[in-house]
């Protein structure tokens, strides 16, 4: 019994010392070394998971394939017409963007990063990106994909990697506004599976399914205008002061490969 107590105390001491050394920063070189070792393996496995997730495993009969071919031919023709129209629109868009000088006026700088893994702990819903403190990432920097779709905020930053708390994480909170007549304000919170919930929307304001939700800019480090999602359902109780909206994120948060970290906001 005594030897067991000794073993238990010995192991607890080692673990305790390791935790203390971590918080004092003495373990940083060793931690960075092992991160460098594990990261490439983690990255390749993550890429495999993305590829696997994007593959549709279906088996078709010959008739199915013929029908699908016919359908695709028709779709291809329609897409050709669409493409010509879009090329016209694109040139117009470029012209308009130049006129508006959009990038200059947006006032923020971004850093491109690749997703190298995701968190496996049951507490959180996060992704790991290959951009860290030395690259200019800071805690609470917004992380977006595409042309301004918010996916989360940086929760922890190390020298070469950062951990991004996704908007559907339990602890995620983002000040948001709905693009409706009243420009309703609320708080987008995670913890509802693949959906997110917008809470604290005043009861008297009218929300419709399909309304777009963007960041309100009413919090530090978060500019106004990043898309969060669309309203999928509305929860309204007559006796409650606020109503809630269930939002569908605009991107599949499980299949993110490239992101941009907003580092400077003027």
């Amino acid at each position, binding site marked *: 019994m005594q030897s*067991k107590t000794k*073993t*238990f105390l010995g*192991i*607890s001491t*080692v*673990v305790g010392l*390791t*935790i203390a050394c*971590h*918080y004092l920063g003495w373990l940083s070189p060793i*931690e960075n070394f*092992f*991160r460098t*070792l*594990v990261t490439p*393996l*983690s990255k*390749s*496995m*993550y890429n*495999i*998971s993305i590829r*696997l997730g994007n593959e549709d495993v279906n088996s078709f009969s010959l008739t199915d394939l013929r029908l699908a071919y016919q359908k695709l031919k028709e779709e291809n023709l329609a897409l050709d017409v669409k493409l010509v129209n879009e090329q016209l629109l694109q040139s117009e868009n470029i012209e308009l963007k130049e006129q508006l000088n959009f990038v200059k006026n947006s006032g923020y700088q971004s850093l491109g990063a690749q997703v190298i*893994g*995701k*968190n*496996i*702990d*049951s*507490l*959180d819903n*996060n992704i*790991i990106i290959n951009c860290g403190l030395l690259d200019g990432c800071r805690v609470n920097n917004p992380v977006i994909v595409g042309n301004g779709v918010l996916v989360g905020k940086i*929760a*922890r930053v190390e020298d070469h990697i950062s*951990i991004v*708390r996704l908007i559907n994480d*339990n*602890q995620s909170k983002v000040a948001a506004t709905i693009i409706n007549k009243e420009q309703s304000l609320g708080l987008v919170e995670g913890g509802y599976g693949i959906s997110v919930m917008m809470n604290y929307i005043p009861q008297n304001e009218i929300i419709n399914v399909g309304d777009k939700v963007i960041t309100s800019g009413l919090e530090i480090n978060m500019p106004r205008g990043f898309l969060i999602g669309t309203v999928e359902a509305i929860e309204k109780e007559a006796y409650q002061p606020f109503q809630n909206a269930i939002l569908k994120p605009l991107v599949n948060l499980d299949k993110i490969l490239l992101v941009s970290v907003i580092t400077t906001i003027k």
Partner: protein
Amino acid sequence: MKLFVKVLLAILGMVILSAFHLGLSYVLPYPYAKLNIIFCVLILLMLWWNSGYIVWISFFCHLFIELFTVSPFGLVLFSSTLGILSAFWLYKYIFTNRSWYAAVAVAGISLFIYRIVYLFIAALLYLFKILNYLPLKLVFATFIWEFIFTVSTVAIVYFFISRFTSRFRASVIESSVFRYEKK
């Protein structure tokens, strides 16, 4: 020189095991992703080696895993190390016979202890306002899936390995006085 190579190989093995654990959780769909491959491998290795070194291997593997989590540093490390230590004690003093059901019992109980310690520390951190919330439901759901898949994997792998080696068979009797193999 031999010791240096051994240490190097051990570190490499632990890095690969940790990366494999991370990788499997990315590749496998939910809820299969909750399979705790580190626990599976360590429990099988413990039965193979009969050694307490497994606790230190667990310590280093979970240290690597901690580097990729947001939860307060030490939460996974402490609870998992205690989980594996309890597995070792269970194997040494209670489930001493080499059988697939002993392996299953050791795996199941150690996973249970791991999650209980995890929740206990999480509750303490919540009490001291280090954690913003206590994910009781999430941890419970994770534990259920983790338990089902990890215990099943240990049972299946143990069963197959025992077909090819006598090390995993109950017929081998060992004691400090004699070693006897039943024919």
